[in-house]
């Protein structure tokens, strides 16, 4: 492979991302985004979340279409399993965020990706959410993400991709650090 002429194509428009980065560093107010979702209870533990509009670059923005995510619980929870559990959606968010980051970083480093697969596992002690033991937290006691990546790069370069993706990941930050959450009744 001639590294002088090889141009990786992972389908990521890095020029646009770098352009946005440069523009937003000069106009920090345009970098202020608001992400939104609305959710409606259906029945039992089943609910439907719709994602449509968000705010950014100084104005209201819209997805090309409304995205819907149904959440429910599996039958072992005496539910009907119409959708993934909310905690699994959190794993999907983490996987989606890290994987997108890997593609972007690889593109920026001119690394061609052939396949990127992640498996995720999160431990949880149900004694927390069931209120059995107050010392047990409700959430995950740990998350393990394992990537299998086939790319035009050596192992160290691939490890660096995965590390850099975590460093710049929003969902990784949301999961690893505390966030102030306010839940109110309208």
């Amino acid at each position, binding site marked *: 492979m001639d590294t002088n002429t090889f141009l990786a194509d992972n389908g990521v428009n890095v020029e646009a991302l770098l352009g946005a980065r440069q523009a937003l560093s000069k106009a920090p107010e345009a970098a202020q985004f608001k992400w939104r979702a609305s959710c409606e209870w259906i029945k039992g533990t089943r609910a439907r979340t719709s994602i449509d509009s968000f705010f950014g670059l100084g104005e209201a923005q819209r997805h090309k279409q409304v995205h819907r995510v149904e959440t429910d619980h599996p039958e072992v929870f005496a539910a009907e399993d119409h959708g993934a559990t909310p905690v699994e959606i959190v794993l999907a968010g983490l996987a989606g965020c890290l994987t997108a980051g890997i593609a972007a970083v690889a593109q920026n480093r001119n690394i061609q990706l052939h396949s990127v697969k992640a498996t995720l596992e999160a431990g949880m002690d149900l004694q927390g959410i069931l209120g059995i033991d107050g010392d047990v937290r409700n959430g995950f006691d740990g998350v393990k993400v394992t990537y299998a990546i086939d790319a035009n790069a050596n192992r*160290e370069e691939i490890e660096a991709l995965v590390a850099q993706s*975590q460093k710049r990941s929003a969902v*990784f930050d949301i999961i690893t650090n505390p966030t102030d959450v306010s839940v109110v009744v309208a």
Partner: protein
Amino acid sequence: MTAFEAGAAGRRPVHGIDVVIIGAGHNGLAMSHCLAALGIDHVVLERGEVANAWRHERWDSLRLLTPNWLSRLPGYRYTGDDPEGYMSREEVVAFIAGYARASSASVITGTPVTRLRAEGAGYRVSTDHGDWRCRAVVIASGAFNRPMVPRLAADLPAGIAQLTPFSYRNPSQIKDGGVLVVGASATGLQLADEIQRAGRAVTLAVGEHVRMPRVYRGRDIQWWMHAAGLLDQRYDALPNGSDDLARARAVASPQLVGSRERPIVDLNVLGAEGVRIVGRLAGVRDGKALFSGSLRNVCALADLKMRRLLATLDDWATACGHADSLTPGERFEDTHIASSPATSLNLEREGIRTVIWATGFRPDYGWLAVPVLDRKGGIRHHGGVVDAPGLYVMGLPFLRRRKSSFIHGAEDDARELAAHLVGHLQAQSRRYRERMAL
């Protein structure tokens, strides 16, 4: 040239001079030396004494992170009998004070600058002992004027003592109980090591850091950085331009200790000493310290970057024919992380009664009334040439070169900025003469 002005406090002297240098640390003195050599009339205003920060704002055991043979300033160098050693705080003070004497620098001590503002085609530097009107100013007041303490410090329970690297002197001043050291760059690493060895239970909160062995293949890491030219890399010659520069300027001090025995002190060593390693302090809630779950990744990043640096140095050694005179390259173990590092600690229950903020330092520009600060409070400059004609800054991380914040980094920066400054004075004089001729 001195005049007097009426003011609220009576008559204030107003001196006229070509150049005022603010700060008599190694940078201000290096600039003074270079300007003197060029015959430029100048004065160095010093808030306290020569080498003030080293006298009053450093903990007892601190030593330079660079070996003595690397310590030199324009027209001056280390001449002691321990070239491989690392200067203690007192030795640094003596070195800088010796330089001030040797170069007969015109220093006015005990004179803090209260305000610097533009006036006419130059500047007015105000102090409690009078003002200086001048054509150019060199800000050499340092990059480490104030320890940074994160806002979440306010959320700590009232009974917990809080120290900064400015108020910490040695382990004996710490009250009984455990200690949480926040930050694992050079400062945090050194303090955690020292306090744990003094028999106190230390927890170290680790965010992004730079891992580096003190000695590699038998040579001090600073020998490598110096010899391979990494310390001489210029601000305007980095591969990815301003992006790389912004990153390089924000990088914290590497995990090094200056000590005659040249031990490698890293998170693995601290862990073996019994220091509890946790993630970045991310919050304090209900008396609990919350630590980021990013510990593994920040350590993985540091391990990867260290391996990359050492591979670069190996390549350089081979290419330059040094490889034969060096011991074989050793491989350092990756940072060990406990199987489930704590993400929250109840401070009271854990007996933690002291928190030390080793979370970095900031310059203090409270007196600077020239609009040259960016939105984060840093001075806008290009290699030390500030965005205001005739104003210069020195001693900031990677100001002109990777070594700019090192003692020996002042030499090249001072020579180049002094030359630029003289060019500015000459151009100004030429314009003035041309105007008069019209």
